[in-house]
């Protein structure tokens, strides 16, 4: 995979979140609450794992999301994973 900038990673994340969880793109903001904005229940974290693998090619576990509150937390988590690959 070619090297992606942070902005490109964030754009890609937002795209799949809007598509998979059917939320309005305008509702997504760095400081917004991820769980509440996307209306995630425990089952939805499984689908988040599927989307990450499908879009970035690495596997994570649903329990890895503990401590991720905002979209910015989520972006940082993914960016860190992508950059450490």
């Amino acid at each position: 995979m070619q090297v992606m900038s942070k902005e490109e990673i964030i754009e890609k994340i937002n795209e799949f979140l809007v598509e998979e969880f059917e939320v309005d793109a305008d509702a997504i903001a760095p400081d917004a609450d991820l769980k509440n904005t996307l209306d995630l229940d425990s089952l939805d974290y499984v689908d988040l794992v599927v989307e990450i693998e499908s879009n970035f090619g690495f596997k994570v576990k649903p329990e890895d999301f503990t401590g991720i509150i905002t979209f910015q937390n989520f972006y940082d988590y993914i960016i860190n994973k992508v950059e450490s690959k």
Partner: protein
Amino acid sequence: MSRVVITGIGIYSTLGVNLEEVKNSLYTGKSGIGIDPDRDAIGFRSPLTGVIPKPNLKEYLKRRDRVGLPDQGEYAYLSTLEAMKIAGIDEDMLLKEDVGIIFGNDSSAKSVIEASDTIRLKKDTTLTGSGSIFQSMNSTVTMNLSTIFKLRGINFTVSAACASGSHSIGLGYLLVKQGLQNKVICGGAQEINYQSMGSFDGLSTFSMRTDAPEKASRPFDKDRDGLVPSGGAATVIIESLESAQKRGATILGEIVGYGFSSNGDHISRPNVEGPAKSLEMVLKQAQLTPKDIQYINAHATSTPIGDLNEAKAIKSIFGDARPYLSSTKSMTGHEMWMAGASEIVYSLLMMKNGFIAPNINLNTPDDEVKDINFAYETVNTEFDTFLSNSFGFGGTNSSIIVRKF
């Protein structure tokens, strides 16, 4: 004991995606059969199949309610929505009453195989996604619909091969008759995809008449060469007469008998005695004689032995009574787990609209049963009592009689 009536029906089938479309197809003898080119490519003997549009439920259901639905669950959601509208069952009623659900379904192969493929490829079970388990179980239809519609009555699935849909109505009927439930959403659902049909195709039971797909399913005809797999979903809402009358519901028919039996014989080869026993039982339960039945919707699937044995069983019980007989599978193909429910819906549409649908493609019946009163063409006639047969692998048999109320 309560009398048991039908207050709602809905359909999503190869003959149409609502009751009006299906009624017109039944009347004109339209076939729902086509060719699936993918089946040829992956080694099927026969590419013939019922053809049905893929539903788009985005406008009806939120994401969480959709991800657990397999193909047949989507069909069943739409047929149930239509049936609930006809029955006048709304969200408010579902909050106040314990409405139950019993559906016939005996596979969810596509979801199982896709999950298995993902696990083998990715070496990670989480990557099957959150909906896979709810799509994969035989009880997928009842577990999903009971959640979507917030049902709080009886809740289970009947797996009885190609008699599943019929037994679901029979069991719902018994629960209502006993006074244990006031309203039960019954039905049958059947996936249409190659994953669910490969091993069945391997038994050489499917028609090979690929030059004219609409002529491939020809129950009772001398030139029949096998069944055509098909599917969809049908919903039949049953209710105690007292409950229906109290709320002023439109009564579409009364279930007056449920007969059943098991052949105790070969796993796939049907016999005559088992179905005959089911027919005797349903007449006895309904306290009717053969002359009271004006139409029989046959199980007949277009297989050489199955059709002949059913015709012999009917002849042995009905003798000189000679009710009209047709198999709507001549148009739909074999709707399997769904068939017992859809054929109650088809027969109710006929009874309401004063016609008997033709057994299309029936030119010449077998010599032994040629004196049966087959509906070779559409028959315009009022009738008030019909019987529907459904049989399945393992020799499970179910017969239901419905009367105009």
